[in-house]
């Protein structure tokens, strides 16, 4: 068993999905393999589709910086991006993100 962190997604209908995500997996991959409705990952994590768009609900977590490409791609998200928007393929599960809560746009 590899080590995991706990990640929670709040779906558009306010339902919550909580899953143990192996370290190193992207939060997009984790959402897809846990059938989180609304996180699709059409491009497979290549930063080319903006279908893994999430709002970071919880404060105080240190996330990787938003690259210029991620910023550009966020403009193509189906639900308009906000300050807390991220493409979840760009966030890898690391110990520091244990307990993070993400909101799925809808």
């Amino acid at each position, binding site marked *: 068993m590899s080590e995991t962190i706990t990640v929670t997604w709040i779906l558009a209908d306010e339902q919550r999905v909580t899953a143990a995500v192996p370290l190193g997996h992207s939060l997009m991959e984790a959402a897809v393999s846990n059938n989180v409705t609304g996180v699709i990952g*059409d491009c497979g994590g290549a930063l080319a589709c903006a279908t893994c768009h999430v709002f970071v609900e919880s404060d105080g977590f240190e996330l990787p910086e938003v690259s210029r490409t991620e910023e550009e*791609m966020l403009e193509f998200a189906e639900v308009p991006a906000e300050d807390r928007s991220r493409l979840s393929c760009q966030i890898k599960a690391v110990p520091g993100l244990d307990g993070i809560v993400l909101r799925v746009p809808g």
Partner: protein
Amino acid sequence: MTDTNTIAQTSEGVALDPRIPVLDLDPYADEVIDNPYPFQKALRDAGPVVWLKQYGVYATGHFETAQEAFSDETRFLCTAGVGLTDIRKPGSLRDKNPLMEVEPEIHRRVRSNMMKIMSPVALRGMRERFDARADAIVDTVLQRGGFDAVHDLVEPYILDVFPPTVGITIDPETVLLFGDLNFNANGPFNDLYRGALARVEKHLPAFEDSFRRENMIPGGMGAQMYEYEDKGLFDEGTAFAFVRVLFRGGFDTTIAGLGSALLQLSQQPDTWAWLRANPDRALLAFDEALRHISPFRVSHRVTIPEGCELAGVRLEGDQKMAIFMAAANRDPRKWENPEAFDIHREGLNDHLAFGHGAHKCIGLLLARYEAEALLKAMLRRIERLELAADGAAANYKRINTLRTLAALPVTAEEAA
């Protein structure tokens, strides 16, 4: 196979780090193109970086090293062309691609504008058309029961959906000959290249005309590229090449990937059944096919003028580096049981078939949407897909840098 005597200087006058093994194998020999796996293994086994003696280039078939060379623009550039021949020198087989084979800062600007034209929003708007066309063609082949999945299904489908997506019209009779030339031209000036050129030469002017401004379908991506050029967002004269790049890059490769996905699926009834139950995961089969038999098998970079380090060895400046994605995509250092086609494998999307880093295939989302539409249409309608008895020895076309099936006879049992 490997020269154990390292040499201080190559015949090209490159001072070779003695830690770099010299490989005296020809990746473009007919027998290697027909069966690339012994070469790929020799390339990987020799070390992370080798010197390909016959062509005077560095090469890698290691996953991690390939990924590094693709993505680190402080050490590796595209400015000498991504084929084997150097576009800066006479005798190059290819014209410069103004999207890719330029300085990093120019590339960033052009790519960012290109992404506005090929945006996910625009592409999502095409999926309905892809689904409808996929349904129609699956319907046609099902009436026959047995069919050639390459010639009767994948090729006509891509030929149907892709040119209007780019916003061009193309002669369906000759278009495949251009792909053969295109992917031969990424390799050496050999008989395969000469043969492909001879077959297509008389059609070249008409083919090139398809990318000209006056032949763009109004409102299409190609037309928008010309508009961007008019607005000064693209440099003058580049729109033509962008339209051509988009078409050339996305046509034969998608056909190849779909063909090899169907070849594997026709031999894995359990996988087919699982995908029928989970059609939203259809792209797993496309991605695994791209890893398992990567269509575009080798790309190149050039080292920065001052040279650099890679995988613990010293590379001289301004030298080409051949990155064998097909070998890296079967590197056992990265992949468990790499020869197996396994849609549930760990890290499947890490494959390098689309490249990696800033130059990762700009059309990958388009290719994925096209592939997904066809696979889903097939999964909906076909209960069982099987390799026809005479299709057991599926063979590939002989092309320098593209691995694509010559034919794929299958039988399909329609779902009730």
